[in-house]
């Protein structure tokens, strides 16, 4: 299940849910990604994909965002067809849900 493409995502933060757009690009066999929210674009670091036995794909990465607030976040989401779901975690805070669909 490929994650490449654009995704409209809704995610919880300590100050309420926000909308973001995730973009994943595969070029020369390597995957890169970025997330845009509130006009600020943050690159994804340590992006990794893990194919699962049931045909879904788990994707993990880290990113530092500045909007709506400065946060270091770790993501773990699973792609099933045209939807993704999972969570983000900011440091020791409880994990927060992330839901999205392809644009």
């Amino acid at each position, binding site marked *: 299940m490929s994650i490449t493409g654009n995704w409209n995502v809704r995610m919880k933060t300590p100050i*309420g849910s926000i909308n973001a757009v995730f973009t994943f690009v595969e070029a020369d066999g390597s995957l890169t990604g970025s997330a845009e929210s509130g006009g600020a674009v943050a690159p994804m670091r340590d992006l990794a994909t893990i194919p699962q036995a049931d045909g879904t794909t788990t994707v993990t990465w880290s990113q530092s965002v500045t909007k709506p607030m*400065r*946060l270091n976040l770790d993501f773990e989401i699973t792609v099933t067809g045209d939807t993704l779901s999972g969570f983000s975690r900011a440091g*020791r805070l409880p994990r927060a849900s992330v839901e999205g669909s392809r644009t």
Partner: protein
Amino acid sequence: MNHVQIVLFPAFDPLDVIAPFEVLAAACDEAQSDTMIELVCEGEPRSFVGGTRGLALTATATLDPTKPGYVIVPGVSGPVDGDPDAGDETIPVLLARVAASNLMPLIRQSLDNPDIVVATQCGGGLILGMAGLLDGRTAVTHTLGNDVLEATGVTVVRARVVDDGDLVSSGGVTSGLDLGLHLAGREFGPNVAYSVERLFEYERRGTAWHTERSSTTTIGPHREA
């Protein structure tokens, strides 16, 4: 002349403002210092309604990041629990609102000014963290906010007062008394701080943590080497 500028904004926590204000006022009296202590804000001086039962205070000047001395940023008071998506104005929501306001460029200028020490009280530290102003710094905020503060890129030391040179942060609510006494000690020396402790019938408690021990004996605004 040195200045102590204590910043007001909507939903400020009254004690975060008043505790350092009173301690530093008494310290200046004791030291016979002409240090100016005022409540300030971004923009035109005006009244602000605090977050506790509508108690209001009036800023009498505009925050000026060129005045040497101290800029103190309080936290907010409001509901701890609630669903921001349902419109609940929880403390994180209120703090984030200040972090996104026009006040932050002035705080950034204050941090960049070598003649100013920026001090935060309670959630004030988290405001600066949310605004991205404390990346890589060492600081503390209210105990309920320390995990979030850490996630903003701050090295959190869970002490009562954390002295990181030109940034001094303090923990929750009553630690504003300790922040005031710590700054009084930095500015006027231990005898003045001790004298205020006796006058206020309050003894400093908890840990005052220092990035550099040298900052404990600095008289006047600390300057980074």
